[in-house]
């Protein structure tokens, strides 16, 4: 049980990654592929944030930063590791911007071929 709890986050990240990868490879619809890509991205974020978690620690904002306790010694074990949070915070915003680009390309494809199904697009590409 102890082992299960301590590794559960990593198993779920692998499972999410598999779901995303499967959707990207096997799904015929382009929007489904993009959803798969987003699931893949969030799997990576789950992994990073999980490595930053710490037992018995609080959120990474220094308590009483400017109060009378400001002189108190800050122990690293009191606060969650902030570094993965920083990396993932920007990754989330960038992922929504790239999602916008992906959806724009999908709209462009739909404008040209009138469908979002991969096999139908391939048929139209082969015989113009």
């Amino acid at each position, binding site marked *: 049980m102890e082992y299960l*709890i*301590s*590794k*559960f*986050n*990593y198993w779920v990240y*692998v*499972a999410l990654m*598999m*779901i995303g*990868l*499967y959707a990207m*490879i*096997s799904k*015929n619809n382009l929007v489904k592929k993009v*959803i*798969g890509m*987003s699931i893949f991205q969030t799997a990576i*974020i789950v992994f990073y*944030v999980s*490595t*930053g*978690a*710490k*037992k018995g620690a*609080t*959120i*990474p*904002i*220094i308590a009483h930063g400017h109060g009378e306790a400001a002189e108190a010694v*800050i*122990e*690293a074990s*009191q*606060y*969650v*590791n*902030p*570094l*993965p*949070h*920083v*990396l993932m*915070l920007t990754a*989330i915003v*960038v992922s*929504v911007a790239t*999602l916008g680009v992906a*959806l*724009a390309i*999908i*709209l462009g494809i*739909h*404008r*040209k071929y009138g469908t*979002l*199904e*991969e*096999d*139908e697009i391939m048929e139209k590409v082969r015989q113009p």
Partner: protein
Amino acid sequence: MIWQLDLFILGMIVVCALASIMVKDLMSAAIIFGAYSFLMCLLWTEMGSVDVAFTEAPVGAGVGTVFFIAAVFRTSRHVSRRSEGRLGMKFLGLLGAFMTGLLLMTGVHDFPGWADPNSPASQHVSTYYITKTIEDTSVPNIVTSVLADYRGFDTMFETAVIFTAGIAVTLILRRLGGGGGSHSVSGPAYTTTAGYPDTIIRFISRQLVPFMQLYALYVVAHGHHSPGGGFQGGVILGASFILLGISYDLKTTLNRISERANIALGNLGVLIYAGIGVVCLLLGANFLDYSALSKLLPGATEITARSHGMLGIEIGVAIAVMAIMVSIYVNLASHGKHDEGL
């Protein structure tokens, strides 16, 4: 760090992920994916990463879902049944995914346990950030100080990536004059009430917008002391314009913030960020070393100047993110024609 909650949310997340790729209706898939993002947001909060949760809430569950809905609305809603028979490809995909998963599973055994205080990731540079942030920068929110100061280069180029994405969307979709493409598909994919004036929705959105914008400004300005900052505030600010565009129509949004203004603001945001870096350079310090700004700011010591410098670049980030989110939405929702929207 409550492991029961962790297990429960992660289970729900996997269910949502499976549901959103299995369901045949793309609009449902988009909505389920929004729920998935919201569960993610709960998970981040549970693991103590409040800033990531705050970003995920407006970005993943809010604007991301709106982008999906706009794209589905402009194309087709249903997945064709005809292509269900490609078993070979499905099997190959499943095999590939399983092999990759198996490989990663074998690696999981060697990871340090979840929430282990002695894991290597929590040992080296992160202890420096936690213990020195008040001393170096006088900013209590460690995530902000790492984001905007210690790793300012990273964030500058992330902002540049967002700006580039906005330009790319405009380049791909924008059509001047609304001339039809070769396959100009007949209108939206299904019957809608687009343009139908729903008084209740319009009234509530109209009342909500100023408060959203005020809150966004608070989030930007207060990012040093509480979760939040330029990215979150910028997305909320953009979401307020997107809400206007959804509840009224695109014209209303574009009257408030025109396409030209959008692009200019996107530029301006990145320019503010890089400009502060250059000002530091001109004052004789390194690029983005805000302590040099104490020479310009009256009453600021070298330490508080770093805090003020961070506020400056957060404002730049917020402006850029807001403009790009609005610009992407406007282009997606109107297929690049900027006429009616959803």
